[in-house]
């Protein structure tokens, strides 16, 4: 891969030049991040003009590492996972030039945080059943409905939204994808308290929310296709994240094991080693998946990584509580708070155990992912879809 070696060397030189011109210690945070975006050093695999340099995706880790080593501010990716992981690649793929120009830069710098208005009380696994209505009114759309399980809605400036624009068509065909302003007075965000005690998610009520037609992503009626691209990116961003060995939950449990010899038992040792191996294999599998992704768009294969990630997070966090024994019986704090970021491995072991239960539900349940793998990767017969060809308005709700 001589070509990539050359690209890597060139990239290092550009980062060094940039840092020479923008001293991280002397430049204001958002100005620094905007300049980094404009220099094409934000997401380097994006095209020039949109924060990138058209380089292989594999080089992203390199550029992030170089900036981190120089003590540069980052764009707080943990606070804008949906923006960076899902909204941005979807806008890049389906957006107009004007939309890319307007939204990508403040999204990357973190000035505008994004959330996702997909799931509804009546449309969870069956996302295509969304009932939130968007009705055309001149140059804009008027949206009414209720969304749920919306992480970060209380901090978000914008949302990716799917809404029904034609109830006379079968359910997959009448959906359109929008970039929804969360600052509209018709948006009402209410915290949804979870089993951890905190409210990381929200319910979002939309009442006569106005979205200009220029913030429609993709054609009218194309929302299902666009949202599938988002969901494939979501599964990759949930399942394919960690890079260093012992990242995430396995690292937390391994540290506890090393620091507390008095807690060790032969039975827990065997289980820990098995899970350590599984986590290491998942890490290498994720690395290979990212090398594949560097060559193209994420496909349904990312679903397998997400399936494994959820199982491991649950088994490891469960093991950690048993390892802790008496201390595992205590919980840090049940107070209702609204955290600013999604944190799977933060707080205490009890929190990790409870939060990990969401890993096999959010972003597609493990059961839906198994259907996706079986049907789209393995080519097995699809589930019977009795409602596929019936106009949405005639379906039993």
């Amino acid at each position, binding site marked *: 891969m001589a070509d990539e070696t050359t690209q890597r060397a060139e990239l290092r030189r550009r980062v060094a030049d940039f840092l020479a011109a923008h001293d991280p210690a002397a430049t204001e945070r958002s100005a620094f991040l905007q300049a980094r975006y404009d220099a094409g050093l934000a997401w380097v695999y994006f095209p020039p003009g949109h924060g990138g340099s058209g380089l292989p995706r594999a080089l992203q*880790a390199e550029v992030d590492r170089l900036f981190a080593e120089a003590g540069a501010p980052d764009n707080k990716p943990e606070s804008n996972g949906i923006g960076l992981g899902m909204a941005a690649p979807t806008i890049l793929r389906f957006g107009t030039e004007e939309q890319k120009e307007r939204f990508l830069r403040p999204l990357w710098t973190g000035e505008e945080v994004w959330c996702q208005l997909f799931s509804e009380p009546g449309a969870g696994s069956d996302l295509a059943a969304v009932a939130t209505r968007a009705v055309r009114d001149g140059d804009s759309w008027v949206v009414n409905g209720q969304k749920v399980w919306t992480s970060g809605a209380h901090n978000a400036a914008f949302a990716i939204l799917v809404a029904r624009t034609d109830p006379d068509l079968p359910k997959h065909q009448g959906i359109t994808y929008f970039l929804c302003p969360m600052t509209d007075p018709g948006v009402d965000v209410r915290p949804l308290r979870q089993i951890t005690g905190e409210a990381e998610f929200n319910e979002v009520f939309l009442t006569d929310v106005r979205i200009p037609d220029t913030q429609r992503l993709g054609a009218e009626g194309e929302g299902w296709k666009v949202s599938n691209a988002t969901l494939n990116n979501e599964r990759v961003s949930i399942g394919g994240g960690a890079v260093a060995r012992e990242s995430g939950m396995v690292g937390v449990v391994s540290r506890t094991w090393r620091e507390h010899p008095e807690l060790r038992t032969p039975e827990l040792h065997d289980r820990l080693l*098995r899970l350590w*191996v599984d986590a290491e294999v998942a890490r290498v599998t994720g690395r290979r998946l990212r090398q594949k992704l560097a060559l193209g768009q994420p496909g349904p294969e990312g679903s397998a*990584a997400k*399936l494994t990630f959820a199982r491991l997070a649950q088994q490891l966090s469960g093991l950690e509580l048993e390892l802790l024994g008496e201390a595992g019986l205590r919980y840090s704090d049940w107070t209702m708070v609204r955290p600013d970021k999604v944190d799977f491995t933060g707080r205490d072991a009890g929190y990790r155990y409870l939060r990990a239960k969401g890993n096999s539900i959010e972003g597609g349940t493990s059961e839906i992912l198994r259907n996706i793998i079986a049907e789209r990767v393995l080519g*097995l017969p699809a589930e019977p879809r009795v409602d596929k060809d019936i106009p949405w308005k005639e379906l039993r709700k």
Partner: protein
Amino acid sequence: MSDLNLLTTDVEADLRSVVRDLLADRCDPAAVTALYDGDRSIVAELWKVLAADLGLAGLLVPEERGGDGATAVEAAAVLEELGRAVAPVPFLTSAVVATTVLLDSDSELLAALAANERTAALVVPLSAAPHGALPALRVDADGRLTGTVTSVAGALEADVLLVPAAAGDGLAVYAVAAADAVVAPVVSLDMTRQLADVTLAGATGELVLADGEGAVRRALAAGAALLAAEQVGVARWCLQTTIDYLKERRQFGRAVGGFQALKHRLADLFADVESADAAARYAAVTLAAGDPDAEIAAAVAQAYCGDVAVKAAEEAVQLHAGIGMTWEHPLHLYLKRAKADQIALGTPGAHRARLADLIDLPAAAS
């Protein structure tokens, strides 16, 4: 591991397709099944084509010593294909393990292996782990070797045996003509890699390594790392064959592969096999690169892939149901190979125990 490529290279893809085509042509499941009834005629013929005509015997031998100078990555590609066809050939035992022992020696035997003039086997039980106990035969003052090693793989196909013998605190390795040993075939769980008990009674041999324990352990480690690729091949065949069958088999008026109870099991198995593939590849890539992570990578691959191959074969039997229990369907060949491979070169548990040391997760104090 930042620069290691985990994707298939063009060279490897070409090699893989040549081996696959040849096996499709020359490794008929019926002829493999016949091994269980004592007909071993397929073995010599198939190995001649692979070793001599394709030159696989010398794959891991450097060019200056008469081989191909390929790496563990290409050897892994070959082993995956051999696993997929459950091919009964001594590639792992001669071209990987015995060859790796001889890389540390200046014996001419290495060139003879590369040229497929000779086929060799390391005389250790197939179950021997790279970091476990090793057999050591007695050697007297005249250099005569005496002792028995049981359950040796590749000995039946070999004309030269690499025999570990006690030498002070360490091990010496002698090359002994198979004709000078008693090689007694064993009725084996996996007859596609049939074992033998090897007895030497005062046989003489060529001293190939006076201080050979390191070479023997390195050879077993390379074997273990690459066995993972064979296990992936076995698992892939089982998965794909089961998918194909469940698309065809109809009950209750539908293809049974449409039932969630079955398709979810296949989806889980797919995730496991993809993971095993990545683990095996990482082991091969680090071995080929001489990467410091190679030992951990091999232990991880062996702790993982052996279980996945067994699971794939066991799921295949269950999901094929009645036909999966028959002698006629080739599935049982894969189940037996998968189970034997799980024990070969250290069980998953043995590799996990080794890993505990390597990654500093110590056992509970007893």
